[in-house]
């Protein structure tokens, strides 16, 4: 069972305010119940898929300045700082 408190905790983790938590409770619960089938699968292998590369494929350590002044494309103050709200 998904409860209101739990949905609100999840909403807090992903930083959204839910205007109608009840609507999400029912849907999320229904979908999670469906996901539960994963728990019953018997697996032969613990391996996971994924691409593998070697250190040779990695980027060489070279400084290349970005060709553009990126900050000009972002929200900024007159000193080129990004402004964020207070933290407390």
């Amino acid at each position, binding site marked *: 069972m998904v409860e209101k408190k739990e949905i609100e905790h999840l909403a807090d983790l992903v930083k959204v305010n839910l205007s109608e938590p009840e609507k999400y409770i029912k*849907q999320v619960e229904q979908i999670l119940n469906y996901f539960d089938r994963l728990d019953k*699968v018997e697996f032969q292998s613990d391996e996971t898929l994924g691409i593998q590369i070697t250190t040779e494929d990695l*980027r060489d350590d070279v400084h290349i300045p970005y060709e553009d002044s990126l900050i000009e494309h972002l929200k900024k103050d007159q000193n080129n700082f990004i402004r964020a709200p207070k933290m407390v």
Partner: protein
Amino acid sequence: MNLGISATEFTSQVSDGAISVEEFVAKTLDRIEKVDGNIRAFITVDSQNALGKARVIDKKIKSKEKIGICFGMPISIKDNICTAGLKTTCASKMLESFVAPYDATVISKLKSEDAIIIGKVNLDEFAMGSTTEFSHFGPTRNPWNIEYVPGGSSGGSGASVAALECLAALGSDTGGSVRSPASFCSVVGLKPTYGLISRYGLVSYANSIEQVGPMAKTVEDVAFLLNIISGHDAHDNTTAKNTRIDYVKDLKSGISGKKIGIISQMTGDGVDKEVECATNGAISKLQDLGAQCVPVSIDAVEHSVAAYYTIAAAEASSNLSRYDNLRYGFDFGIEGYEFKAFISKARSNFGPEVIRRMLLGAFVLSAGYYGKYYLKAQKVRTMIKAQLDEAFKNVDYLISPTMPILPFKIGEKIDDPLKLYLTDINTVTANLSGIPAISIPFAMSRSGLPIGIQLFANSFKEKELLQAAHALQETTKLPGIAI
């Protein structure tokens, strides 16, 4: 001048001097002007630039200068692929005015071959959906019947090709987002092998399984586009090396003597009768061409939708964290806010489907549940791939209907997310396993709605896959959209 020609017919007509690029682009823009009020495929139309480029290309042709192989072909781009100087909104309020300062790798490649980006097209917000209804800018409609969904999430790409508003399009496919609209709009759409095409500049939704995919009227056009956009990229560590292959060459090799497996888990229960009938039709056409068709069981498919949504939601919840409205986003001052209150307020502008998936993602990743959901979902991926590898020991291709159902009406399933998720049953397997899959328009329902057939091949076997798809498309004679 016929807007219904294929992309490759366009290139030969332009190079022959039979048509001018400017004229074709202008006519395409007229067409968008005329029909897009109904279809609503486009979020941004770049008319001025498109016409300007067309003129430059015409001039080059006249003066016999070297020219890219796209010859000014107008292409529409899903609005989650970054285009320098042109808005990339992801159909979200969060990015409604975002202009990326750079081109995605696929865009640079298209531009360097003289393709013309005619505009950016609609999608479900951040590509989360299969109907293109979950867009901040409203739903796109199916050109075959505007009361119906065009599929999704690349609904704008599919609809713009079908409605002759462009010659080809790029979409992105995370769980079927290229193939679903290809099927519902009666165009060809390819989900390539994971790692074949650079994702640099594709705004991430579920980055471990998604790929950019070409969409066009013909398999040949798709092969043509794949030649341009595939290949290793120094900006994407997940792209494979040594993958440059000519997909157009030998396209007409046919499929005589090939073996095709019919996936029983995708063709039985829950498949619409007319879709089933079309699938059988496709199978017998392929047999007529000399292929041998046998039933194949991939029983891990039963777990695929749960695994897909677990992984997609988990990755989405992380990928979408960066949208906090501090560095870019919409206008909304920070004064008087505390950090958490500010970003929570800003992020509440995500649409309901995005919020739903972020909540699910947070749940399946939270302490204590990782092993129960996320890790299990990852193991399902391994299991599916192992079963597919086993199947490909005996067969060259696999076949299924792309979508188990016909296009449905806008609003019909919008309030039942799980029901909607379950319609992805035939498409998510390719994403979870990384293998390529293509949707080919094959039939029309009695009510005049398109039905697509899906073919799969093993990883990096796009050349063979396109050969089979071409052979199947050659057997069809489908109506075009009335102009």
